[in-house]
């Protein structure tokens, strides 16, 4: 695996994990999927497991490709970067519609 590809993979896996976790948060589930009810418990549990697996996979790619020190550092920083990216994505997807604004408790 080339350097760039490994880094991109680490970021993508972290992003996927946080995207899944974002859906388990009631507010974002309501905005993005179904406003009427909370995310089903089974789905929340599965999303959490999937997110944990993605994060573990990202860590393993980072450590295998960059070594323990650089890999761990890259993974921790990629976590933050991916979480910020997911937050930006959630904002972009939900802030646009007028219904979202009205439905939100002020």
């Amino acid at each position, binding site marked *: 695996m080339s350097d760039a590809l490994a880094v991109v993979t680490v970021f993508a896996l972290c992003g996927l994990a946080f995207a899944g976790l974002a859906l388990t948060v009631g507010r974002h589930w309501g905005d993005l999927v179904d406003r009427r009810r909370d995310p089903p418990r089974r789905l929340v549990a599965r999303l959490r497991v999937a997110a944990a697996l993605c994060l573990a996979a990202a860590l393993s790619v980072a450590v295998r490709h960059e070594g323990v020190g650089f890999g761990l550092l890259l993974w921790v*920083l990629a976590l933050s970067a991916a979480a910020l990216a997911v937050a930006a994505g959630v904002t972009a997807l939900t802030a646009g519609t007028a219904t979202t*604004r009205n439905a939100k408790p002020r």
Partner: protein
Amino acid sequence: MSTKKRALISPALRAAMLWPHTWAGVTLGGLLMLIFFMGSLAVFADEIDRWMMPDTRVGAVGAHRPDAPFSLDRNVLPVVERLAAGRGLRDWYAKLPDGRRPVMELRVRTDGGVSGGMATADGRLLPPVGTLGATSFFYPLHYSLHLRAGFVGYWIVSFATVAMLAGLISGIIIHARIFKDFFTFRSWGQLRRSLLDLHNLTGVLVLPFHLMISFTGIVIILPMVLPAGVNALYDGDVQRFYDDALGNYSRPRSGTPAPLAPLDPMLAEAKRLWGGGEAAVVFVINAGDAASIVRLNRDTGDRLSLDVEPIFFDGVTGAVLKHQRPGPVVATHRLLSGLHIAAFDHWPLRWLYFLFGLSGCVLIGTGLLYWLEKRRVVETAVVGLGWRSVGALACGSITGLLIATLAMMAANRLLPATVPSRELVEAGLFFLVWIGSVIHAALRTRRDPPWAAQCWAVAALAGACVGLNWLTTGEHPLRAIALGDWPVLGVDAVLALTAWTAWRVARRLSHRLSGRRDAPAVTMTEATDHV
């Protein structure tokens, strides 16, 4: 985990944490902004140096390791002789060229004073650069505020950094819905909520980096700012502690002249002892003396740790005098220091450090702005002196700092090389412009600090910097791409992005000001994200 948290953090504790969090932020926010912003610039200090020192833009095509093997005796020593100019040499050092700095940097102490300069890898001395650049101005400003006497700057920066750590911890305690708000940024609606969301997002999501960078920042200078252990075990002699911990070696001049042994065999021996790796710095102490010492530091580009593994040679015989590996705790200290300094060659990590450093600026800036907005609600009619002071401070440390930095970079391209003490004129301009922008902010803060006016200034200056680099060096973006001069291209690109963002923010602020009175500051904080 969340149930455990609920049990641990009571409402009373949360309320108690709010006061120190708020007031540490309001009083030290401006200083912390300076520290975080200059630290972020320091991540790309070498690249900004290339931009500010056009003569050193040599061998950008990767010629920093010439075909002929680099030789200390053939490439470095003649430059040292030229810098000494016949005066008696005492000590000198040379930072050797590497991937990010294609030139070597030398400093020579002679009987007749100190002189320094830069030279190409093949030993051609370059004309004086006439600037402190990022490595000698922005970077020291980050950790010492240029207050060297008695380490005063170190103390102030460390104090602010402990406050930053306390602010991070108390912030996490105060924040009631960490998991519920984990990804939440409500960009619409009330400005106060948007500011608080952004404050929480940068604080929570980038928390590992902020904790790490604040902690390791103090770790580097720990023996200076917490010398209790050094006082107890080394009678307060920090130098002796460092010699012991890092395996340094020193001895006084003997007074008997003796020639220096060839350096290249020492370099080869050092590489063998390091088990590979390159040399980063060569020091010659007591040059030309029978007690001369040659010290070689290892390049740390391939590792996280800042352990430079110094090897000390006898300057006359070339025998190894000392090569001591640090113990496990000191090695940990070097690792923590290395995490902060980020001297490693790793571009994704370098960009993440830069961006997360700026996210620290956003964290501090949104904190200040949130305080201002919240107070504005309380004090509906008249804005008090305290509010105006914090407003001016926030403005001076957000846009004012940008203006000063950009003004210095513009001056760097405008001042002719013949100006006496050119580097000091540049640095003086930085401080003058900064003070000027704070005064401007203080005078113009009525209902709001003068965000729009200062954003226009940022946009104009950043744009001017890109243009001036083109005009004075002939290096426009297309040429930089053709040459593969990524450092200069990168600095120009970030400047252009700054100009564009500041222009958009300024335009929006001006529109809003003519329309609605309040609300513009959220875009303000987005602006700091890009510089």
